[in-house]
Structures are given as structure tokens and as C-alpha cells.
């Protein structure tokens, strides 16, 4: 690099750039948080959904599945499973695990009560109604 471009110039670009773009990011974040009520389905965020989210977390579902495309890639996307399979199938499926089919990927049985499974399904229903800009591309997730 040329000698007219000094280390202190580079340092100033660094500090100036970092501060400017972080503040811009904070401004965009503020705007996003303002816009979210129209998109994030918070009208349907009930107590039951909150309990379902907690069950989703303490059973580490994200360790195999994706939710809105984030998580592990070992098992199907669940952001739209409510539309793909419907509530009754999901409940029956969770209860029937593990399948024990030799050589097939296995989902543990988490020993959830019927009420807990209802909570989990409520959470998946709420998640499926978030405005994701039409992602995933099709029902298969």
C-alpha cells in the first residue's frame, strides 16, 4: 500500500466505519421492531404458545429440525409442518416415536403429556402463520 495512505488513516476508517455502520444497523433494527407487529403473528402468541415454545426449547428440537430454515438439517423443516401434516398427524407422530425401523433416523420419545403435546402444536401453528416472505418455496419445506 502506498506511503501516503498511513496507518492512522486506516485506523480512522476502521473506527469511523464501525461506528457508522453499527448505528445504521441499530436504526434498521429500530425500524424492524416497529414493523414486526404486522408480520410476526403476535396476536396469536398466547400463554399456550409460550408454553409450547418452552417445550420446543427444553427438548432441543432444533438439534435435529429446522424452524424457519434455522437449526439442524437432519430432520424435516417444522415451520410449515402444521400445514403439511395437520395437528392430528403431528400429535400421533410425536406419540409414536421412536419408530425403531432398522437403519432409519430415529426421533426420541420425549414422554410428553397430551396437554404438553397440545402446547407444542399450538406453538407450531403460531410459527406457521409468521410472514416469512413466502418461504419455504413449497410445502415440503
Amino acid at each position, binding site marked *: *500500500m502506498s506511503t501516503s*495512505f498511513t*496507518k492512522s488513516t*486506516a*485506523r480512522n*476508517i*476502521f473506527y469511523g*466505519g*464501525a461506528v457508522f*455502520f*453499527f448505528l*445504521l*444497523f441499530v436504526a434498521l*433494527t429500530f*425500524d*424492524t421492531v416497529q414493523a*414486526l407487529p404486522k*408480520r*410476526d*403473528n403476535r396476536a396469536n*402468541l398466547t400463554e399456550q*404458545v*409460550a408454553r409450547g415454545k*418452552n417445550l*420446543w*426449547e*427444553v*427438548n*432441543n*428440537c432444533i*438439534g*435435529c429440525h*429446522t424452524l*424457519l*430454515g*434455522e*437449526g*439442524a*438439517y*437432519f*430432520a*424435516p423443516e417444522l415451520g410449515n409442518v402444521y400445514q403439511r401434516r395437520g395437528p392430528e398427524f403431528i400429535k400421533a407422530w410425536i406419540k409414536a416415536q*421412536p419408530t425403531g425401523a*432398522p*437403519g*432409519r*433416523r*430415529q426421533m*426420541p420419545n*420425549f414422554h410428553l403429556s397430551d396437554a404438553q403435546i397440545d402446547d407444542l402444536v399450538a406453538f407450531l401453528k403460531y*410459527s406457521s402463520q*409468521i*410472514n*416469512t*416472505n413466502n*418461504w*419455504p*418455496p*413449497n410445502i*415440503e419445506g
Partner: protein
Amino acid sequence: MTSLASAAGRQTTPSAANVQLKYRSQAVAKPYFTAAIGLFVGQIIFGLVMGLQYVIGDFLFPAIPFNVARMVHTNLLIVWLLFGFMGAGYYLIPEESERELHSPKLAIATFWVFLVAGALTIVGYLAVPYATLAQMTGNDLLPTMGREFLEQPTITKIGIVLVALSFLFNLSMTVLKGRKTSISMVMMLGLWGLAIFFLFSFYNPHNLVLDKYFWWWVVHLWVEGVWELIMGAMLAFVLVKVTGVDREVIEKWLYVIIAMTLITGIIGTGHHYFWIGTPAYWQVWGSAFSALEPIPFFMMTLFAFNMVNKRRREHPNKAAVLWALGTGVMSFLGAGVWGFLHTLAPVNYLTHGTQITASHGHMAFYGAYAMVVMTMISYAMPLMRGREANSNRAQVVEMWSFWLMTIAMVFITLFLTAAGILQVWMQRMGDTPLSFMATQDKLAFFYWLREGAGVVFFIGLLLYIISFFVGKDEAR
């Protein structure tokens, strides 16, 4: 060769009278680096288990379900990199500041606290069901568990914060009382940023969109933000030492690189805000800025090669130079090229949450962070063991391990990329899309190849460890 031979002759020098270390307290880095390598081995073993579960679904079920293996794999990665960063901090900050570490005793105590807390967490993952662990550790009081990479019990997270504070206090006191260089300022800024952004891991609202939005303030602002400052500072430190190039030149490069990192990377967070409920304008912001994120990584490559080409000394530690060049190239390929591959919103619409993401994650973490930690270990460990560089024989073994691991990682990435492209094609692009599981069955061939490459990686890692035990050169 003479310097190599004389270095080898000093191998038995006790560390108490270590002539290679400018400041005795730098030696506290040694247990950190040792632990990092040990945890790295654990990470790869669990990686191999998961790789096998991809094709033999019931392998080790129900003893180690996939989600547990993955949690151990990713958490061990994070923890061993943190051990590496901390070791690097303890090693380079005293040397840059030209004084002893503020408190070596605190550094050693912190080491044991972190190691025991980390080990207990991993044992908890493996010994009891995750829901039981959540209950035992009082997750209900402050629920933070069960989110990707942030699976640690809340008490472990609090422990991480305390360890980080102790570490940062120790280093900050050292810097404040000593010489302040650009390298030490950037390193400290990166480490403080790491600790501050980790605090967002305690924010877990019921609202899934807000949860995901601020989850990325930990994950993205770490790996595509402040961690790059740490990486840049570590690389710059080693390049100053092994090339003898004027510090002013190296530090100017460092500032330009990290300036580009934050200018592109902060708004680049937007590439995670395409499909999680956030406004559509993020598709423009995220695509535009993250498309520029390869620039600082490419500059990292140019930086490493330029400095080595302009070297004013022949450092006997050739292995450390190889790691420094390697991390420059592989971080650009893994983070830069493989990141760009799927970062534009119209592409990401199809690739989001597929094996394409996994392929990028593997090469980026290895190329940028695993390799820069190994660069630092390769440079500093011989010095802490009382010699300027390892024997020629030991370096040859270490270089073999470099090539085996690096080439294996290239193949892991290529096989996962192939799997990802096919997954997108079969599951998301056709007129009659297959289900997730039907698609996975068709990808088995590529998963087997990936597992094979993983075994080669593991062999490379074992060779890396063996290189620490290869003795001095035989007399000619």
C-alpha cells in the same frame, strides 16, 4: 538448518528458565492451548458419529441421539476456539504490552473454572435427557436453553460471562499499564465485543421472530464480526514475528482488513433476516452488504502472502508460516466464496436451511477460526516449550497433518455442496418435489463420501497431536 539444530538442542530447557519467552507469564497460555486441542479431538469424534447417523439413522440410538451428538459437536467447537482465543490473548498481550501479565494466578484459576464448567456441561448433555438437564439447572428461572449453539444451561452461560470478565480484566489491566499497540487494541476490541454480544444469549422472548432476530446478534456478530478482529490480530501478531516485516505495514493492513470486515459484516447480518418474519427490505440490505463480505477475507489472503513474500528473516518455524498462509486462503474459500455462494436473497430462497449451509459452515469455521488458532499454537507452543521452533522432523509431521486436515475439509465441503445442490433440486425445484426424508435417502452416497473425508480429517488431527511428541532431529 543451524538454527533448527540449535533450537532442537535446547529442547530440555526447563520452562522456569525459558529463554524463548520474553515474559514468563506468557506461559499461562500453554494449558489453554492443550485443552483446546483435547476438546478439538472430542469435537471431531462426535462429528464422525453424526456423519454416520446421517446414513445409518439408528447408530448409537437411543444412547446418543443425533441432537445430543450435534450439540456436543458444535459446543465443543465453540469452547475449544474460546480456549484458543484466550490462550492467544494471554500469550500475545504481555508481549505486545511489554510487561508481565497482570495476574498469572488468576489466569490459571480461570482456566480450571472454564475447563471444569465446560466438562460438566458436556457430561450433562451426554448423561441425562436435555429436558432433565434444563430442569436440574433451573432453566425455568431464566429460560435461555434449547436454541442452536446456545444450548448451554443458563448457569453455564453465567459462568462463561464470569470467565470472560476475569480474562478481560486480566488482559485489560496488562494493556493499560503497558505499551499500547494496534495489534493489542484490535485484539482487546474483538475480545470485549465477544463478551458483550454474548449477553444477547440471555434475551429469549416468547416471540419467535424477536428471539431469532437477536439470536443472530450473538451468532453473526461473533463469527462475521468481532471474531474476525480477533483472527486479524492473531494473524498479524504471528506475521510480525515470523516475517520480520515492519510493524507499521502489518498494522496498516490489519486496520484496513477489519475496517472492511465491520463495514460489510454488520449490515451483512441482514442475510439472516430474509425468511424469519423480518421485513422484506432486509433482502436488499442483506444481499448487498453480505455480497461484499468476501472482500476482507480476500484481503486476509493477500495480507498473509504479501507479508511472507516480503519477509526480512527466515524464521525456523516453517509450520507456523504454513498455517498462517493456510488460514488466509481457507478463510477466504470457506467464509468468502462459500458464503457468497448462497448469500443473495433469490439464491438463498432455495438454499436456506439445506446442506449448502452445512458445507459453508464447515469450511468457514475450519478455515478462519480453527486454522488461526492452530497458527497461534504452532508459533507459540514451541517457544513455551523452550525452543524457537520444533525439530525438522516434528515440523514435517505437523505439515502432513496440515495438508491432511485441510484437503479433507475441502472434500467434506465439496461432498456437502453436492448433496446440497441435489437436495435443493429434488426437494424445492421440481414440479413434483420429494419429501425431506425421501430426498435424504437419495443423498446417502454423498454422505458416505463425506464420512470418508471425515475419517481422513481425524487421521490428520491424530498426526497433529503426534507432532507434539516427535523428538529432535538425528545427528547427521
